């Protein structure tokens, strides 16, 4: 059953998963505002249709081919206009682009990029939800060329394509939700310096080729391989600017604690990419100069009633601490884990601040984690303090960034970047 606005998603997803004839009963959207009497009437109106659909034979009897991988051969060669303006109209017409001008993925450019991995062009790196298209090495390279990536960026994108497909990331939820989740790439280790990924001033803004094109390339992978086309399988109500591109490195030199990849079990000399699906970015400008004061204002920023993590639980909110804030916290004797513990404790939200429907959702969604939830319950932002993610990035200044989590993703995912040489 789908509400009308989601029927296309249901149909597209059923087809992508190999069940093109799955019957779908449709109910009017938005559904949640109907009164109890309206729902009773609706049930009476549709029950016969549902009974009929359950008993209606499929149009054709197709043999079972469970377990078979989709076509993962080499990419098709397509004839396109040579003129730059015409070529970009061609890209837009085929919905290959994100709306910005793109670089033509000629066989020569793609071949140059493929030199930067030892993996075979037709090797399937992962299957990208919600259409579950096969992310072959070649297909990742084609999208990287379209986005403007330099050839040596390819290993980062292969690692990113692996990371987003990890089950705990729940890419299916991220790509097809009405939420505005964008996939943020955090680069750690020597590769960040080698590729010139900005970790300093304006690292989440414009101006760095590596940040801009790496984030953009992953978006094109999600759209062209994963089928996340706006208004189709991507159901975002508004989306957010981070869906064009969202990538930075951690400022490891200015980080007084262990860097993210070491915290997550990788060797300091390894290079990694971490994927996170924030719902947005929120600047926190505070001139507080002691740990207690800084943590209080950050925790207050985190605690707002429509932060999805409070409603869903299980999520992972993130913070980008400025080097200045991080140094004050470290100077006052706090480890990164202690910072997380204090923020988790201090950002608890009184359940009474939620709307009635959101409160009901919390009661349903977080009962297993928190037991019986009443209006007096203080809701933690995530199941455990360790679920709060922290990196140190940016240049001088008293600004840190809060990124609310899409609570349906339990964890960020980190993968090592494997170089050809």
């Amino acid at each position, binding site marked *: *059953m*789908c*509400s009308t606005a989601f029927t296309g998603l249901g149909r597209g997803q059923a087809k*992508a*998963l*190999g*069940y093109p004839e*799955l019957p779908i009963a449709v*109910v009017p*959207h938005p*559904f949640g*505002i*109907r009164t109890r009497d309206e729902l*009773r009437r609706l*049930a009476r109106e*549709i*029950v016969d249709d*549902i009974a009929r659909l*359950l*008993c209606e034979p*499929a149009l054709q009897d*197709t043999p*079972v*081919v469970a377990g078979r991988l*989709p076509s993962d051969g080499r*990419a*098709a060669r*397509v*004839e*396109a*206009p040579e*003129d730059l303006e015409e070529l970009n109209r061609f890209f837009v017409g*085929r919905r290959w682009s994100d709306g910005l001008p793109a670089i*033509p*993925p*000629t066989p020569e450019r793609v071949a140059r990029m493929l030199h930067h991995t030892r993996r075979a062009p037709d090797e399937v790196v992962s299957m990208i939800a919600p*259409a579950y*298209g*096969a*992310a072959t090495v070649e297909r990742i390279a*084609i*999208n990287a060329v*379209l986005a403007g990536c330099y050839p040596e960026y390819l290993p980062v994108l292969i690692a990113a394509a692996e990371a987003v497909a990890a089950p705990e990331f*729940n890419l*299916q939820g991220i790509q097809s*939700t*009405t*939420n505005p989740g964008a996939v943020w790439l955090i680069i750690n280790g020597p590769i960040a310096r080698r590729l010139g990924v900005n970790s300093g001033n304006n690292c989440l803004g414009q101006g760095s080729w590596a940040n801009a094109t790496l984030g953009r390339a992953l978006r*094109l992978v999600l759209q*062209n*391989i994963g089928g996340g086309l706006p208004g189709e399988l991507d159901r975002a109500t508004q989306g957010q600017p981070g869906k064009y591109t969202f990538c930075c490195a951690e400022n490891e030199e200015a980080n007084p604690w262990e860097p993210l990849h070491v915290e997550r079990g990788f060797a300091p000399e390894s290079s990694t990419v971490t994927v996170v699906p924030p719902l947005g970015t929120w600047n926190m400008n505070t001139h507080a100069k002691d740990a207690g004061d800084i943590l209080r204002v950050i925790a207050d920023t985190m605690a707002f009633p429509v932060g999805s993590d409070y*409603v*869903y*639980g*299980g999520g992972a909110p993130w913070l980008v601490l400025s080097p200045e804030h991080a140094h004050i916290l470290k100077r006052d004797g706090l480890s990164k884990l202690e910072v997380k513990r204090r923020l988790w404790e201090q950002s608890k939200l009184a359940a009474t601040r939620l709307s009635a*429907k959101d409160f009901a*959702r919390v009661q*349903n*969604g977080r009962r297993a984690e928190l037991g019986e939830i009443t209006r007096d319950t203080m809701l933690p932002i995530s199941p455990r303090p360790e679920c709060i993610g922290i990196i140190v990035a940016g240049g001088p200044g008293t600004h840190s960034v809060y990124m609310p989590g899409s609570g*349906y993703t339990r964890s960020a995912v980190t993968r090592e970047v494997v170089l050809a040489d």
Partner: protein
Amino acid sequence: MAGSMVVLDPVAPERNEQQQSRRALDGLTGKVVGFIDNGKPNFNHLVDDLAELLVSKHGVASVVKHRKRGSVPVPDAVLKELSAQCDAVITGSGD
């Protein structure tokens, strides 16, 4: 095409191999129907009403309900249990 060039297609082909034929039920009398409630407001009420009508009007033997947590997938163990218990399962998508 005048002034043309060759580019490589960035789009993954659709997974169009049918995985499994859908089995239609030979009537609903005596059958067990499952619902996976997506946890969105009101869907639980519609599930309750449909369950009642499927039993009273269409002879369904029983209805099994699972309410899931927002956009988080149903755990594999629950899916296995539902497919063992039920002749058909109805899921919900949307708001």
